[in-house]
Structures are given as structure tokens and as C-alpha cells.
């Protein structure tokens, strides 16, 4: 399930559940660096409509920690996704 290590100058992004359905892939490598608050805009360019349809209800993790990709959180506003990072798009969960 974990993708191959990202090539130089890239980060890995994992798509789960509805995000995976929409992108039609489980993971890919994208060029780094990217500001966390620009991530959703970048994905909207690649997958038109994903923002409203999927991302609006998703959370984002970077290296297994939740970050605020909406850009409203002062602490995460300047956060940068770097080469080699593992980013994940986390739709609303449904265990049990």
C-alpha cells in the first residue's frame, strides 16, 4: 500500500476511500516543495471538481500528523510540504 519512495524533488501523496475513487489512484508523487495551504488548489488543478466534491470534507496528514490545509490555522499557515514527505488525504472515516 505504501508507494515507492518519492524521486528527488518530490513528495508522496496517498488517497484513501472517496479521494482514491475520484483520483482513480491510491498514491502518486508530486513535485516538492509545496505550501500546505496550496495543496488543495494544486489537486483541484489536477482533478477538476475534487475540491468541492471530496476535499471539502477531508483532513490532511503530513508524515502521520494532521495539518490544517485550509490555511486558517496560524500555526500551519507557513507549513511547507518537503521532498520525501508522505502526505495523505483523509476522508471522513467509517470503521466499526
Amino acid at each position: 500500500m505504501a508507494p515507492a519512495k518519492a524521486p528527488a524533488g518530490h513528495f508522496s501523496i496517498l488517497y484513501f476511500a472517496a479521494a482514491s475513487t475520484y483520483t482513480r489512484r491510491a498514491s502518486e508523487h508530486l513535485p516538492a516543495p509545496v505550501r500546505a495551504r496550496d495543496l488543495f488548489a494544486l489537486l483541484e488543478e489536477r482533478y477538476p471538481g475534487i475540491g468541492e466534491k471530496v476535499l471539502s470534507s477531508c483532513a490532511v496528514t503530513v508524515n502521520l500528523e494532521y495539518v490544517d490545509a485550509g490555511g486558517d490555522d496560524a500555526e500551519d499557515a507557513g507549513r511547507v510540504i518537503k521532498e520525501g514527505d508522505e502526505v495523505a488525504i483523509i476522508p471522513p472515516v467509517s470503521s466499526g
Partner: protein
Amino acid sequence: MATTEPSSYAADILSEPIVKTTETIHVELTPHDLDSLAATRFVRSPSAGATVLFIGTTRDSFNGLPVSSLAYTSYPPLAINTLSTIAQAILTKHQCTKIAIVHKLGECPIGEESIVIAVSAPHRQAAWRAGEEALEETKAKAEIWKLERFEGGDGVWRANRDGVMGVKIDEGGKKGE
């Protein structure tokens, strides 16, 4: 929110269980059938007078629609951390003795166990409350997703917080009706 999967979708297969165990906490994601007796045995303790066991099984319908099959997928390294954090918080809050949370991944036939939670505590009130809260917290937070396939139709990614069917998209990722 929910989107559809073609009925050919196959969940990522986890070949081996992922486990995190301490003296008092056992959390596990597994592709195998769940063993509720093993979870119960893990939490048994001479200092605990009560053990509560919850077994969640997959239902054959959603809002009256027949579900033909189910599969769970996960982000295992994150989900195991989340389960571990939940288990630790429950132990502390309810002063329980031990806790086990085990969730199934991959295909899960209708009517079979998808989650097992066992909690032990000195007295029954704490064990009841802890068991219920552990389940609710897991359903709210663990990074696990359920795909329900309906008879004669595509699959739908469930979202626990919605409690409704959700909106569908077609395969091209375009907005559907």
C-alpha cells in the same frame, strides 16, 4: 459524503496483522477473522472484577437497501497510532485495567465480526462506560473506511458522521445526479 466504486473494486490487502501491544493495551488491524476470545483473554486480570466484550458485525442492509458485501481499507500506520491513543485515553479516564481494540481490514462477509473491543476494570460501571466510549471514539477517529456494495449496484464509501447515503459520482469523476 460518499462516492461510488465500481463493483470490481478490491480493497488493499494487508497480508499480515499490524499490532501494537503493551502490558495493558492491545490494538490490532488484521486481514484475518477476529478472535474475540483472544481479546477477552488479553484483558483478563486478577485485579479486574469486570470484563466487557463488544463485538461489531456487518449488517446486511443500509436504510433498507440490501448490502451484498463489505470491505474495509485503512491507512495502517496512522490508524494504529490513533487506536493506541484512544486506548490509552480510555484506560486513564475510566481507570480500567486493560483494553483491546481489534479491527478487521479487507473483505468482511456480511454477518461476520468487523470490530472487537474488550475492556476490564475493577468494577462493572467503569468497564461498561469504557467499552462504549472506546467504540464511539474508534468510529469517530480511526482512519478506516468501509465500502458497502449494494445488490445490483456500485459500492459506496460510508462516512460514520453522515448517517446518510451520500452523493454519488460517476467513474470519470464528474458530478452526477
